[in-house]
């Protein structure tokens, strides 16, 4: 290949990637800037790129600020943040406990209707949420589960459990049977084998699934909107609260957006290796 083509290709690549990443990062940068603008600058016409930054927005949503006291909604934002944390963590924990055994069972044992059950589990990943949430709303009302952490955690299992079972089943199937047989001959009961051999060997799978399930629960909106309420409101709903009837508190909304995204971004950078593993599982090898 001639050097000219190589240089052309590089140039195309630089321009192409530059365009894409500008597209991808620009909105985030803009919102970031917005979060530091005071009300006057926030929706100035024309939009301001140069401004004097302020931390007022962040202060308003976290601790409440004097000058905003008449305008800012109650600074419940930290509470929303906590709610989201509780729900996401509980969801992941419950999925792990329920789903790991089912995944192992599907991987190791054969019993009638096994593949049908497996596919049914999987198929709910592809179901429109309202199909289940609307009737669930009725059921939850009768059981007084509306606006409860337990109720939401249970509802979230709808999505996280099938996913966990599908991924972990694949990982369990990868463990050579003979290793588990060796452990049994060495003296472990099936429970011992499960805890000391099988589980440690699927750690990467568990990591990937935990992270992705956590992200799902954190990002979720529709479940919380219909099945949640005042007490359990997570940040995805709280953020809508900045859009009032008369005015929109753009600056505070922007600050909330940033705070909303930060934990996941941190998570992403710290363990992105596992996220990519989890997402591409099945894509390449199958």
């Amino acid at each position: 290949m001639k050097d000219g083509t190589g240089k052309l290709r590089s140039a195309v690549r630089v321009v192409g990637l530059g365009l894409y990443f500008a597209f991808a990062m620009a909105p985030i940068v803009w919102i970031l800037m917005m979060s530091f603008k005071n009300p006057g600058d926030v929706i100035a016409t024309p939009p301001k790129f140069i401004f004097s930054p302020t931390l007022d927005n962040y202060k308003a949503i976290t601790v409440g600020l004097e000058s905003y006291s008449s305008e800012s909604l109650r600074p419940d934002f930290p509470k929303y943040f906590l709610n989201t944390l509780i729900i996401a963590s509980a969801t992941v924990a419950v999925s792990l406990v329920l789903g790991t055994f089912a995944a192992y069972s599907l991987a190791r044992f054969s019993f009638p209707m096994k593949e049908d059950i497996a596919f049914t589990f999987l198929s709910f990943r592809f179901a429109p949420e309202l199909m289940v949430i609307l009737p669930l709303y009725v059921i939850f009302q009768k059981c007084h589960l509306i606006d409860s952490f337990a109720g939401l955690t249970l509802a979230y299992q709808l999505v996280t459990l099938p996913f966990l079972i599908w991924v972990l089943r694949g990982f369990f199937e990868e463990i050579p049977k003979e290793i588990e047989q060796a452990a049994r001959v060495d003296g472990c009961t099936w429970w011992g084998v499960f805890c000391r051999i099988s589980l440690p060997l699927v750690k990467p799978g568990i990591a990937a699934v935990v992270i992705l399930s956590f992200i799902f629960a954190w990002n979720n909106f529709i479940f919380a909107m219909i099945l949640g309420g005042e007490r359990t409101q997570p940040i995805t709903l709280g953020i809508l609260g900045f859009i009032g009837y008369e005015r929109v508190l753009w600056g505070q909304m922007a600050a909330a957006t940033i705070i909303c995204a930060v934990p996941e971004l941190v998570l992403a950078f710290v363990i992105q290796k596992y996220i990519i593993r989890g997402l591409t599982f099945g894509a390449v090898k199958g």
Partner: protein
Amino acid sequence: MANIVLDNVDKYYGDLHAIDHLQLQIRDREFFVILGASGAGKTTTLKMMAGVEPVDSGSIFMDGQDVTRWPPERREVAMVFESYALYGHLSVYKNMAFPLLAGRRKRLTASEVEQKVRRVAQLLGIDMLLQRRPAELSGGQRQRVALGRALVREPAAFLMDEPLSHLDAKIHHQMRSELRQLRECMGSTIVYVTHDYGEALALGDRIAILHEGKIMQVGTPGEVFHHPATRLVAESLGDPPMNVLPGRICCQDGRTFVEIQGQPLRVSGAVEGPSAATPPRQVDVGIRAQHIRATQAPSSRPFHLPGQVYVHEVLGDEGLLTVTVGPQHVMVLTSPEERFTPDERVYLSWEAEAMHLFCGQTGKNLQSHSV
């Protein structure tokens, strides 16, 4: 220390009758070898003894106790898997310590565990590898770890599934002799499975030849080699494999003869079956390469089989001569000085005592001095 008895054990994989009415009696402290080709059912038999594969019908006894339904962790056996089955996420030390820490046996203190592991590791020459992971080891080293994991336990019986089959030729022989020495230290019953007849003959106190799930013969190495019960047994032992030629048995004047390609040879010893009253019968005549003499001129003996030289390979200490006799090839071991040219006419002869007669239909050895 245990004797193991398999009583009428059957196993099916779907429609395949993998193990067929297996009867085995393994004595305490015996080095018992199960020899068979791939797919004969050796690994399945071993896994049933370990408790890892369920038995479909029949029973397994250890030291008189019916352990057929016992889970593996309850039987006091150690197993070395063909694939080694090491715990990849644990260090070599932890792999070897695992059996001592797992399960419901009496708890050992940490120092006792360490003592046992180090002792075995030194014995096998892997004590400098204790902190490594299996992935970092070579095939030979992994095999020793697998062996070590079994040795730390001092179990009633050792079950070994082709432990040497994946090793390079050089290490293979070395490990074979090491195994023989280890055997003295182990002192337990050993059930050893292989497809390599050399290992079987070298290591076993007794050998069972397994073919398609059925036992063909059980005996000492000498017995199975010199007095094979069936043609299959004879063919699985020896390199080159025993030559088998079709022949007919007939009786004349109260003596039994076997006729090969028209050449009669008087049979020594009693032969089951034919008497003057019964008509000549199809047999397979087995004769090992080392018992055949090939000469360029017909010998003075009454029996010689004519043939044509196909190829003669001189391999160091001996020569391997392939002769075309009728439609088949016969292998003859020659001394390294003899010379043969292709297509040369040669005459094969052998002693009647060296010959084996197998029934043409059942393959059973027709001569009563077989066990």
